[in-house]
């Protein structure tokens, strides 16, 4: 490989996230022999790799939405709470007791829904999107700092979710709903298709229209963008709205997966994982240049680490600490100072990376 193209490759935002993911995979290849084993049961693909994608789907969706927000030099702390709201709304609409004053418990656990499934999904996503609009209005129109503005919904959102579910953990017995988080299409997890669909949509919207350019421009210099005629308020509003929408889908997947809606626990701390995924993906918290693909890889790194730890049988109490170590190493790879030190060490040994 020539020196120039090596440099080109290394300057790509995808480079370090892919290297990090490859290292984790290499580790698995050596220490967990059956990590890459795939088997087909009942026409469905099973294996740790499939698990990473399936379990990682909500995080990947959050990371896509969060990337847009962070690129505008903002942040959305409320995505976890929005997941709970969307899940709560879906569960309540499905619950056969909806709108009925009295209902037998045998009726309650029947495999039926009070509302057609498409309405359930539509309403849940609409509510989540509305949450995004709310965040966007606070940030763009009321000029509140993103962290403070979204903190409001982060705290209040769980309360709203509890109001929706009447403070209960609602168990869902309607089996078609489970397809969202557990179903298979063409032998592959359905969640994979959801992620692909949202990613493709987001990619087309940002790279085949001017939206991506405007998002980056606003994130780098909002004032210059405004002077150039870009409506930076609407760009921000759009980013938060889309982020809410993504969180809504993530909420549906998780609640479908666990077959219930728990206002207090669905999506708990997932806003932090989502931010982490974006940061690992190399998008700066100060906004500007972003890569959706790199954020997806960032989410995969987080999920792969978790899955690896389960596969190794690391006790749950140690898992967080190890995950933190992995994240620290990845983040260090981004530090210019650290790279300089690393570079001079490599140079001293006379090994040229070309």
């Amino acid at each position, binding site marked *: 490989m020539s020196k120039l193209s090596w440099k080109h490759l290394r300057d790509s935002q995808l480079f370090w996230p892919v290297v990090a993911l490859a290292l984790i995979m290499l580790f698995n290849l050596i220490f967990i022999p059956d990590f890459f084993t795939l088997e087909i049961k009942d026409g469905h693909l099973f294996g740790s790799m499939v698990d990473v994608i399936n379990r990682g789907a909500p995080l990947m969706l959050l990371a896509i939405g969060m990337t847009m927000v962070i690129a505008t030099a903002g942040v959305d702390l409320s995505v976890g709470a929005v997941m709970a709201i969307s899940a709560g709304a879906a569960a309540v609409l499905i619950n056969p007791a909806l709108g009925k004053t009295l209902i037998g418990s045998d009726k309650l656990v029947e495999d039926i829904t009070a509302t057609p499934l498409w309405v359930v999904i539509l309403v849940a996503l609409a509510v989540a999107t509305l949450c995004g609009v709310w965040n966007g209005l606070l940030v763009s129109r009321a000029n509140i700092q993103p962290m403070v503005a979204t903190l409001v919904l982060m705290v209040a959102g769980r309360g709203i979710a509890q109001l929706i579910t009447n403070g209960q953990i609602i168990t869902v017995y309607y089996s078609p709903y489970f397809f969202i988080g557990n179903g298979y299409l063409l032998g592959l997890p359905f969640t994979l298709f959801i992620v692909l669909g949202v990613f493709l949509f987001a990619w087309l919207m940002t790279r085949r229209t001017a939206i991506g*350019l405007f998002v980056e*421009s606003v994130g780098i210099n909002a004032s210059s963008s405004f*002077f150039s005629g870009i409506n930076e308020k609407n760009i921000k509003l759009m980013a938060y709205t889309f982020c809410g929408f993504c969180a809504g889908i993530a909420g549906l997947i998780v609640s479908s997966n666990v077959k219930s809606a728990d206002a207090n626990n669905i999506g708990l701390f997932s806003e932090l994982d989502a931010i982490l995924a974006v940061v690992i993906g190399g998008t700066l918290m100060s906004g500007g240049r972003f890569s959706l693909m790199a954020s997806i890889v960032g989410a995969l790194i987080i999920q792969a680490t978790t899955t690896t730890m389960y596969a190794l049988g690391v006790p749950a109490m140690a898992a967080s600490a190890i995950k933190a170590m992995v994240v620290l190493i990845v983040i260090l790879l981004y530090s210019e100072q650290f790279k300089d030190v690393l570079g001079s060490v490599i140079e001293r040994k006379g090994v040229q990376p070309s």
Partner: protein
Amino acid sequence: MPDSNDYLLMMSGIGKAFPGVQALANVDFFLKRGEIHALIGENGAGKSTLIKVLTGVERQDSGTIVLENKEILAKSPQHAQALGISTVYQEINLCPNLTVAENILIGREPRIAGSIDWKRMNAQAKQLLQRLDIDIDVTQTLGAYSVAIQQMAAIARALEISSAKILILDEPTSSLDAYETDKLFQVMRKLRDEGMGIVFITHFIDQVYEVADRITVLRNGTLVGTYETDSLPLVELIAKMIGRSLSDFDDMSKIKLESSKSIKADALLQAKDLGRTGSIEPFDLDLHAGEVVGFAGLLGSGRTETAKLLFGIDKPDSGTLTFAGKIIKKFSPLASITRGIAFCPEDRKADGVVDDLTVRENIILAIQANRGWFKFLSKQKQYELAEKYIRLLGITTPTADQQVKNLSGGNQQKVILARWLATNPQLLILDEPTRGIDVGAKAEIQKLVLELAEEGKACVFISSELEEVLRTSHRVVVLRDQEKITEFSGADIDERKIMQTIAGS
């Protein structure tokens, strides 16, 4: 090789390359004790890069730096400061939301029992500023003061380091008025007499002759030479800087005369009693296609505020604005662009370039904003536009995909001009388009403005350099204390009269 004992600083054979650009090649720079040494050259000549190498912002690819007979390699600006090299940068790097005293003494606050001794700190800051003959309330936030005062604070901050042996002033006078400039020169001379070596970077040639002892000229990253100021006549200096004759400037009056024939009688833009409380008193103004109208006045006279009203960044609270026969109701940059108005803002760094984006992206920004979110220009069309304006305006960049932050100031300004020309505006408002850029590029931009007028565009030209306003404008509007005072046109344009009007006497 000069004797090292004569020199405070010896930079020899300095080379530095950036992606696609050789910024410096084998440059020597020697600074004596107790001298004011002007470092001059056109945009992209390598002045800033040389300073960045000296102050540890960049590391040179080749060459050595010797300070007081010891070879040094500054690892960071902080390290350079510790070595005795203090810098005041062209773009003021201070925090407008902190107080003046905090800005001056940040990182070196006097302490009492571990916490900051505010009383002593404020007193110290006041004293430092008094050394520059500035008497202000140092407990106010820096942003509350004019750019000139902010500049003085930056200098005070650089001087505060008692061990400073070298003071580098990068375009210190570009935002100062004549009186403040004089004050600064007094301070510079005083420091020189105390034995400090002062590097003075400026694009005001007359100031070089006023204050500098020696001159080093750079061109295209190479050293042209170092000269005693007394032995280098002005014409020779300029010839050395730009490597071509000054006939460009002589052409100007001819072009201006030519273009004045194409001024349309009907007004393109008409302001009637247009005003905004606290920013500009109600004024009447007509702008015609094919005409360049200059705004003259001091900083804070309302030049920029008027431009902002015309472009719809600020909304007027009185009067009407008519453009191309229609009364304007919606005031926003986007609405103005759609109408055919363009605006190059005064502060290139804060309101102009989007520095992490490429040249191409910067150029298409306004035209794309006008097209909206979904009618995205194809990559091919984007490159066509970018290449066209890179060629047309002579923007020096390796490729259209270079990040704008890697370009020199003058080229960044041209990129912003390109952004607006791409929208094909009928009215072009230029606020300080030549600020901080040098003779050659200045002449190019002034010429361009006249050419655009000749093509039938209306232009507003705002500049704090009166000479430049006079050279380019068919009509001059004079503002003072946020009020339009009067207009001069044709034969009435007279430097002395205008100066008197500006001064209010």
